[in-house]
């Protein structure tokens, strides 16, 4: 199993979500993050300017079975890209074990619903 962590633009979320569903990825989690980027933007506070440019991004975390890794990455790149600086990154890492809390199922099994396997 692999973990895919993608940092994407908030405005591309709908596209990414739809594209993932297209390729059969139905479950994932996401949350708001802020990114530090190169392009500094000045902040103002009552006439004092200070520098803390952060940009809002969405972190998407998907754990997939190995065989689904490629298509998932491709789906994200295809749907999250705008071609402009700031499109974000995708990082892949290894997951040693997974459990489904409800049933206690382990491993690959915990990641799909039996009988619904695409």
């Amino acid at each position, binding site marked *: 199993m692999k973990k895919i962590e993608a940092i994407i633009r908030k405005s*591309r979320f*709908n596209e990414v979500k739809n594209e993932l569903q297209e390729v059969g990825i139905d479950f994932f989690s996401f949350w708001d993050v802020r990114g530090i980027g190169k392009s500094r*933007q000045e*902040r103002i506070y009552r006439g004092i300017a200070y520098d803390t440019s952060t*940009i*809002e991004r969405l972190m998407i975390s998907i754990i997939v079975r190995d065989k689904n890794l490629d298509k998932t990455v491709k789906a994200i790149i295809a749907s999250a890209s705008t071609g402009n600086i*700031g499109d974000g990154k995708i990082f892949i890492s290894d997951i040693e074990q997974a459990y489904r809390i409800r049933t206690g199922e382990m491993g690959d099994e915990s990641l799909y619903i039996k009988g619904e396997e695409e």
Partner: protein
Amino acid sequence: MKKLLYSSGITFIIILLSGLVPLMAQEATPEPKPYIDAGNTAWMIVATALVFLMTPALAFFYGGLVRRKNVLNILMQCFIIAAAITLEWVIIGYSQAFGSSEGFLKPFIGDFDWAFLNGISINDVSPYYISQAEARIPHIVFILFQCMFAIITPALIVGAFAERIKFKGFFIFTLLWALLVYNPVAHWVWSADGWLYKLGALDFAGGTVVHINAGIAALVMALLIGKRKGLNGSPTTPHNIPFVVLGAGLLWFGWFGFNAGSGLAADGLAASAFLVTHLATATAAFTWAIMDWIFHRMPSTVGIATGAVAGLVAITPAAGFVGIGGAIAIGVIVSLVCFFAVSHIKPKLGYDDTLDAFGVHGVGGIIGAVATGIFATPAIQGAYSGLLSGNPKQLLIQLLATGVTLVYSGVITFILFKIIDKTSGIRVDDRIEEEGLDIYEHGESAYN
């Protein structure tokens, strides 16, 4: 646009043909000695404060509906309108809107006599009054009350081009629009010299001057500035719905000043205006909830808040003229029409009126103005009746006033847009739209 021009043209012709334009001038009867009455003044000072509150309220109503990255931009726009229009109003606006002038311009715009409120002193009695000839309010209170109307009107437009306008372009637009559109139209309808006023157009608290005026400007701006990027027409999720409700609640509260204050006295007319305002609003809110329930099996918070605002808008011009029946009818109608305007017509026409400034204020204002011509009853103010009280003329006059306002405001807005777009520019860069206006236009983010 074309259609609008066309139909208002027809209306105009009908009226001319049918010779329906006698000067039903509501001339001031010679009054004994008007004096400042503490009771009326007490109410009108408070009403003025209440109308002031509507601009922050609107800021939250709108601000909650946009995405998190653009909320400060909305708040900032409303706030600077409050500041700049106040100055504009004192310096020149009041004089142009409510002052008189000589010669050809008299029915169309005031002159500069009252610029800087020149010559108006602290104990002057208001020359304008509606329901009490003698026991009046200070002139200054009337000026302030009207100032708050001048502020909120351009603030309504903000909803149309939200999330993609340059602050500088917005600001220039707003100032010019106030001078070239709001002040003249207010003069036409509300000044004792105004040609629509003399024609007998009824607009108790600002259906034509405020809502139609702002609504059509909103539509034109939305069409010209274009859609937001990357949405494919799907609506964005409001970032803070409690703020929307807070805004709607405060708007409802403040609107009691707006409508019940527009009689300029604390009397039965104020009470009646309060009653129909509250009733029409409740009806419209409830109707919208029912529509949501029917169409989606559940009523939504944004929906009921929108319905309430639509009701407030539509009852505005009618508040001093209609009774309970009229109020309920207006509430139902405006909610039904706006519901479909917003949920069916807008998506089909495909323009991006971000927060439905046209769909709610424009459409609601038109319904209100027309409904005034239908439901006005002499049971409220003896001198005024509408179609259902046997005075079809009134309806035509209302249509005319509506049409004229749509055309005038629409055309000038169009011209202003083009000029500003060519000079200082009006739409932000894609990157700024993507990352949010708050950071790039104001150097701040709302929540930290």
